[in-house]
């Protein structure tokens, strides 16, 4: 049963990942008072990329060609490892928070290698920025996750979710609100969304993530875009599963409720991302330090909050 659920969870995530991207775009279009493309356009788009030829710069090496596969495989692992609607199914040794953090960093590192292997200043610039963000986001990432883990008493993402599921609204999510807030800030950074990066920009000077993939084309580009979509999906779904721990799949849960709440979270997560991107502006890159230290401080405040609850001052 657990094994089935484990596989089901991963497969569902993998299936729905492009939809999340499409939904975000859809909501953004609506915020811009446009009709926007259909939410499943990313599927079409990915497929058409897969069916195209590729052009590769002559200055790139084997590393450039490895990058899409590495990122895709990381996305695959993340899809299975990060719980999105069921808990208690992922093997504990795979859902360790440090492993997830490590995989994020690993992915960033490879993406940066890909950006650096283009011999183009665009890719290089994106690489430098991406690397900076990936490095500086680590403290906030770990402290906020560790805060949740501390409250849950478990260092697996699975365990955190299980803990949340077992708690009431005020006993669970509320004390963790700061930690979740920090995690949201981290998630936006990790997924290259506003206010850190503009995923829809055409201006190279403001690019972070996009600049690194400028040189990729065809199936490689598809793999990269897909990997990015999976990453966005798992982080957002996990975050909102923590924040809205209702209808999580476990033994005895009603499948209808699970599906209902899953859809709610999915749509809500997309909406929130689109909402944030519609109402705030991108920050200057050289002010990222403020943003990331804010994330760290929020995470630390979250820890204090949880400590206060735990030691019941």
């Amino acid at each position, binding site marked *: 049963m657990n094994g089935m659920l484990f596989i089901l969870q991963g497969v569902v995530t993998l299936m729905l990942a492009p939809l999340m991207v499409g939904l975000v*775009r859809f909501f953004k*279009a*609506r*915020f*811009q*008072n*446009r*009709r*926007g*493309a*259909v939410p499943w*356009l990313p599927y*079409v*788009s990915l*497929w*058409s990329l897969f*069916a*195209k*030829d*590729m*052009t590769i710069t002559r200055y790139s090496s084997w590393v450039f060609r490895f990058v899409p596969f590495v990122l895709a495989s990381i996305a695959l692992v993340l899809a299975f490892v990060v719980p999105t609607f069921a808990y208690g199914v992922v093997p504990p040794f795979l859902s360790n928070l440090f492993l997830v953090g490590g995989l994020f960093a690993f992915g960033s590192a490879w993406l940066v290698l890909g950006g650096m292997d283009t011999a183009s200043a665009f890719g290089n610039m994106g690489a430098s920025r991406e690397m900076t963000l990936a490095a500086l986001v680590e403290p906030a990432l770990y402290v906020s996750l560790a805060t949740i883990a501390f409250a849950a008493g478990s260092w697996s993402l699975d365990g955190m979710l299980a803990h949340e599921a077992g708690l009431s609204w005020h006993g669970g999510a509320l004390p963790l609100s700061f930690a979740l807030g920090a995690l949201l800030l981290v998630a936006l950074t990790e997924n290259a969304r506003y206010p850190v990066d503009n995923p829809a*920009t*055409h201006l*190279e000077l403001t*690019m972070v993530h*996009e600049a690194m993939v*400028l*040189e*990729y*084309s*065809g199936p490689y*580009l598809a793999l990269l875009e897909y990997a990015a979509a999976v990453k966005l999906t798992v982080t957002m779904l996990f975050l909102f599963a923590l924040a809205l721990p209702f209808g999580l799949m476990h033994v005895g849960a009603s499948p209808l409720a699970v599906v209902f709440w899953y859809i709610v979270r999915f749509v809500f997560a997309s909406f929130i991302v689109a909402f944030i991107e*519609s*109402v*705030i502006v991108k920050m200057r890159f050289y002010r990222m330090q403020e943003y990331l230290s804010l994330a760290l401080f929020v995470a630390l405040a979250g820890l204090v909050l949880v400590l206060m609850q735990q030691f019941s001052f």
Partner: protein
Amino acid sequence: MLRLLATVLKTGSKAEPVSIVADEHVLGENLRKAVTALCGGRALRIRHVDAGSTNAEEYELTALGNAYYDADRFGLSFVASPRHADILTVSGPVTRSMAHALVAAYEAMPEPRIVVAVGDGAITGGIWKDSYAVVGPVSSLLPVDVEIPGDPPSPRVVLEGLLAAVRSASRK
């Protein structure tokens, strides 16, 4: 932020109802069908190169993304790199300075690729034809699949042109 949000909510959807721009809508549908027929389903990604235009064409192309024309809903999107693109739109007569950039962008595009010359300048060289600063029309450098005449062509004409482009591509 809140003010912005309020504005957004107050304004509501400004996109013209489909019925009003029915012909555009129909045209877009045709295009999408053609594209679907081409490779079994794709969203079209466009890379635009301004090879020396007066920027009139650019204004019109920009209008494709606004709430009125909203080309996004037809699966058309502009992208940041020719390597991501299916269609290369070129405007203006190709100046000597931009010739290399234009060819480089074309070179970087993976097959299948479509070149669209947007505007009279791109098609014939327009009033700058035979100028010492101009190499010539786009066709002198690249195999142009579709020409969208007009100076500048309106967004609607551009959409029609793109449809023709895809049709020509599917005939190949």
